[in-house]
């Protein structure tokens, strides 16, 4: 049966791709459905900084023509996506949600942008984010503050806030976020999405506005693990324009999903992620414990592991990130400080006040942490934990230091560079999503994806997607409508 105009926006990339490939759906019709949905809902969700209706429709018509003559490029061909507004897009304003770059129009695409275009995807627009990928939702930055589709009073997480909002609300089928301390996995967890931070070096950072060169990663955000594998496939691989990109071979990520997880070993560092710390939400831990039980039922072996230096990651990560961020922004911080929003300006300034001794010591701690993780990963295949220490906070309770004050469960993997994914694993009693974090060996995205996919295929793991569709099927077009009925459309 052909999906209705609205139902098109609930399809996964795989489902839409099959319809497109069989010519049962036109990319023009699909793109029109998403543009209509953005038009109807984004004034409340605030996910987009720039919408590109004419460009998107032109690309869709080109894709349609290609498909009609049998020139099918692959699973992203004709798929509507959107990008965090720090990926350079040739001829399209790229702001990083900052007045500093308000009028900046790149003359070249970021490598990831170009690769997604080459794969045939359709760019719907550029998405809101925390200014320069740091801090929180700052009303002084001069750009939209995206809302969490599951409950509009809550933040969608960040810094890839608009990416989380847009994918979760069905305003695009996938997005690229960027991640320096958790900016892909955080919004994925808060919005019930899949978000992958690949291994450092796996995806080119060329043409992506930096926050902290040695911690920045680029990666996909989608509804399903399968769709994340498609996007990673398109963007992974060496890039001569990015000296940190790796020449490691790029495997077939979708093929890895076909294997089960029987016999794989999961390490759980309870001493850190389940610590007796009032800042860690017990209900979140309960949801994640249930997910671990599910993985055990699927045949994985679960064992506790210890990574002593994890307790220092929360100090090392900001010392490196803020120091590098200051180095990048210092000229404008001196000459045009008023152009920055209040939150980011203050934190960037802090980066200038830290000492070289702080930075060097943080990097050395980072190296110890990498070695400890390496030792543990010789005994286990993946490391599993909650993605976030709590669910999405309410806007009114968030200031520029909210994330800094909470224990970071994602930052350690930016320090080590290991691949880490967040996959939806349930909801709290308040109806807020919880994410399960799975981290693996360097360049072993296949095992990370395989574990996440196995979990998402299980009835327990797939309930987030099913919940969206159940609500949709009962004439309330998306999950958040039950939380925010005034937004039904």
């Amino acid at each position, binding site marked *: 049966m052909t999906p209705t105009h609205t139902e098109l926006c609930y399809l996964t990339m795989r489902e839409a791709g099959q319809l497109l490939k069989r010519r049962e759906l036109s990319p023009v019709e699909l793109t029109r459905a998403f543009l209509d949905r953005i038009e109807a809902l984004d004034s409340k969700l605030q996910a987009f900084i720039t919408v590109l209706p004419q460009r998107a429709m032109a690309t869709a018509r080109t894709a349609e023509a290609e498909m009609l003559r049998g020139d099918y490029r692959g699973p992203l061909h004709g798929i509507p996506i959107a990008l965090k507004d720090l990926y350079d897009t040739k001829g399209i304003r790229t702001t990083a949600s900052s007045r500093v770059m308000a009028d900046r129009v790149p003359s070249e695409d970021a490598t990831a942008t170009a690769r997604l275009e080459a794969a045939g995807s359709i760019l719907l627009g550029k998405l809101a984010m925390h200014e320069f990928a740091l801090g929180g939702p700052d009303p002084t930055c001069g750009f939209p503050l995206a809302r969490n589709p599951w409950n509009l009073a809550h933040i969608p997480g960040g810094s890839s806030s608009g990416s989380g909002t847009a994918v979760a609300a069905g305003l695009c089928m996938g997005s690229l976020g960027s991640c320096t301390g958790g900016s892909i996995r955080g919004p994925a967890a808060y919005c019930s999405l899949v978000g992958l931070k690949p291994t*450092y070096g796996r995806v080119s950072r060329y043409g992506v506005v930096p926050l902290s060169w040695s911690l920045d990663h680029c990666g996909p955000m989608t509804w399903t693990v399968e769709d994340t594998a498609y996007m990673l496939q398109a963007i992974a691989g060496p890039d001569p324009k990015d000296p940190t990109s790796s020449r490691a071979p790029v495997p077939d990520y979708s093929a890895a999903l076909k294997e089960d997880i029987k016999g794989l070993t999961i390490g759980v560092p309870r001493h850190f992620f389940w610590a007796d710390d009032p800042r860690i939400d017990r209900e979140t831990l309960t949801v994640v414990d249930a997910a671990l039980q599910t993985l055990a039922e699927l045949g994985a072996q679960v064992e506790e592991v210890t990574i002593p230096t994890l307790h220092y990651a929360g100090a090392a990560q900001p010392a490196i990130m803020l120091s590098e961020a200051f180095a990048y922004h210092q000229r404008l911080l001196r000459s045009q400080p008023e152009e920055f929003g209040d939150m980011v300006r203050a934190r960037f300034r802090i980066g200038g006040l830290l000492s070289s001794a702080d930075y060097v010591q943080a990097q050395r701690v980072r190296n110890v942490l990498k070695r400890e993780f390496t030792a543990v990963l010789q005994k286990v295949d993946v490391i599993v934990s909650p993605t976030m220490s709590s669910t999405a906070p309410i806007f009114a309770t968030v200031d520029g230091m909210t994330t800094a004050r909470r224990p970071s469960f994602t930052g350690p993997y930016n320090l080590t560079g290991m691949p880490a994914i967040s996959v939806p694993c349930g909801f709290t009693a308040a109806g807020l999503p919880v994410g399960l974090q799975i981290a693996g060996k360097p360049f072993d995205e296949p095992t990370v994806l395989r574990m996440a996919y196995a979990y998402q295929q299980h009835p327990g793991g797939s309930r987030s997607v099913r919940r969206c569709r159940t609500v949709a099927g009962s004439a309330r077009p998306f999950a958040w409508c039950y939380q925010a009925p005034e937004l039904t459309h």
Partner: protein
Amino acid sequence: MADSEGIALDHLQVLAEQVGLRLTPAELEHLKPMFDFYATQIRVLHDLDLAAEDLAVVYSPNWDIQV
């Protein structure tokens, strides 16, 4: 750098001026609690005995994929 009451404002001003930031007294006041937060947090890194832990290897873009 930061004692129990945190960094003194005049010290904070010196640090800011060293990197070319000219901050007003109000801006320094605003920045102080944030600086104290991070300084306290980061100080624990210096308590660790890292012996001759090598800094340079952190910057290698390619991993040993035989981990």
